[in-house]
């Protein structure tokens, strides 16, 4: 049984060079790429997410851990493709029309990737029709909407309507500082998450 603890500690601490070296070492030992991904990198990212949720680590710590995870997954990617490993599902993520604040959205993307999703980053200030087009193009199972402002939050309703009208079979989840479960219920979105780590759990539950 390979020891993933050292890898996990390095990843949680955001040590890019160490993560690369340890992943290469494990691959050289013949450990399967998927095992390194699931038991090492994704598990470590899940722990970071939980600590973020508990207010034990903050945005910078999540960002450096996610960067280290990315360094590791890049090394694993060719092996994963060769082994035919698929992402859990595809999610399209963006901030809604009029909103340029993307820190929350970026954190959720990292957490989703850390939970095994393929993520299409639609960026900021995204129109409802663009969400629809991207979800159709990538056969997305999840569309995630972020808004920081009370004034841009109402755009979420338009996206939910556009997704439903176009018949896109994706689940819509929403989040952001002013957003609440009550608002989610009011606009008919499929789920609300108060923080990035919970967003990954929500996405998994929505497609289960």
């Amino acid at each position, binding site marked *: 049984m390979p020891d993933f603890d050292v890898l996990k500690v390095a990843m949680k601490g*955001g040590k890019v060079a160490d993560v690369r070296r340890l992943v290469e070492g494990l691959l050289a030992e013949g450990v399967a790429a998927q095992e390194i991904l699931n038991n090492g990198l994704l598990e470590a990212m899940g722990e970071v997410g939980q600590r973020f949720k508990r*207010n034990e*680590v*903050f*945005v*910078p*710590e999540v*960002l*450096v851990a996610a*960067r280290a995870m990315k360094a590791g997954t890049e090394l694993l990617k060719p092996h994963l493709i060769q082994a035919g490993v698929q992402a859990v599902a595809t999610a399209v993520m963006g901030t809604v029309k*009029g*909103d*340029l*604040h*993307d*820190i929350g959205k*970026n954190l959720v993307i990292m957490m989703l990737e850390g939970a095994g999703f393929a993520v299409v980053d639609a960026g900021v*200030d995204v129109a409802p029709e663009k969400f629809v087009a991207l979800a159709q193009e990538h056969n997305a199972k999840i569309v995630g909407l972020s808004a920081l*402002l*009370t*004034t*841009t939050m109402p755009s979420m309703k338009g996206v939910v309507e556009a997704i439903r009208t176009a018949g896109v079979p994706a689940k819509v989840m929403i989040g952001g*500082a*002013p957003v*609440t479960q009550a608002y989610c219920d009011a606009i008919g979105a499929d789920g609300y998450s108060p923080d990035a780590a919970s967003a990954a759990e929500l996405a998994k539950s929505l497609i289960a």
Partner: protein
Amino acid sequence: MTGKEILFAALRNGLTPRPAWVPFVGVHGGRLVGVKASEYLRSADRMVEGLTQAVARYRPDGLPVMFDLQLEAEAMGCGLAWADETPPAVKTHPLEGGGSLAALPPFDLGAGRLPLAFEVTRRMKAQVGAEVGLYGLICGPFTLAMHLMGNDLFMQMYDHPDYVKAVVGYCASIGCKMAQAYLEAGADVVAVVDPMTSQISPEHFVEFVTPYVDQIFGAVRERGRFSSLFVCGDASRNLSEMARTACDNLSIDENIPLGLLRDTSRTTGKSFGGNLKLTAVLLFGDEDDSRLDAIRCIDVAGSAGFILAPGCDLPYGVPPQNLEAVAEMVHDGYRREVCKRTIIVKQAAAAVCDLPERYDALAHVQVDVITLDSASCAPCQYMMDAVHRAVAATGGPVVVKEHRIATREGLAAMQRLGVRNLPTICIDGEVAFVSLIPDLRTLVARLEAAVSRKGAQR
């Protein structure tokens, strides 16, 4: 005492005859005069007009002259995206990807819209300065560094901490110049607004924030004026460190329990404020919701060193009558007492409470504890702890439910149980202990008696 004197007394952490009241009228002033945010924040005339209306309608003790955290960033070359109902957002960051500070334009108090801020300060000072304290708002050094660097800032705190410190230090020097200009224009209080600091750890706060905001607070103190630190977002982890900075006052939003802020501020002798619920109450609620939230804040805060204020910049669309309702609670102690009772009764009548129809039909004993909110009210918390300890020591089935009067459910439960004081313990629908927390033995005895009554009924 004038409103301004009450504000100053609160800022000195002294007793006040009523809470000081500072509605953070930024873009909301645009609504008051019927123009979009993009026009409002670019016109000294409009802002003076909006603030004048705010003074007349909201009867404040203090007002910010211009709530726009992008002012300095714009003057430093950041591109802005304008919107109808919000302050502009920064869309380009000149130091993104790690540029040199030397490449930035020299900071000029005449650049961009900065002169508007000082002009509005001067004009408002002449107009209402004798009665109303004026706040000059400065973008905090950490948040301004983020405007200049973009999200890179967070990663660079790990990769190149010295570079980040150089940028934040430069932003602090800008803050000192802004503070001086505001004070010369007549501002009474300089508020450093640094919302992005809610996203970092206490250790990083000490390293990347404290030394820099303290430069600004020191400069303000040297001139004998007041300073405040505003942080929006859930900054509860950093609250102790915020209290250790050199400002006179801490202001936070509804993410932090007001009781926690009150207790933490007192450890370092600071005054405190904020906490009115911006969206759920002021924006989306009605006048009674606003009155109740004001009463909640005033009751938790006590009468020393407190400034009632919304947690952050008031949304454009806040119905003015909601803020007038808050002003009424501030200025009229009698109305406040009346509203406590009448609104509670009115709202309770319309709400559904989580109480059983008949207690004698339950197989268990039910303990209903009516609290303000055990997370923010210390006596409520102790009472809840006492109940849980007593239940653990009692043989037989006992179920405990907390009803927070911060919720309509809690108000309805309070009404139905006939509870008049907080916190109160009810056992099987009967008021058992009011305000005083019973000792363990007494409470266990009462619970055991209730359990045996239940047994006898069956």
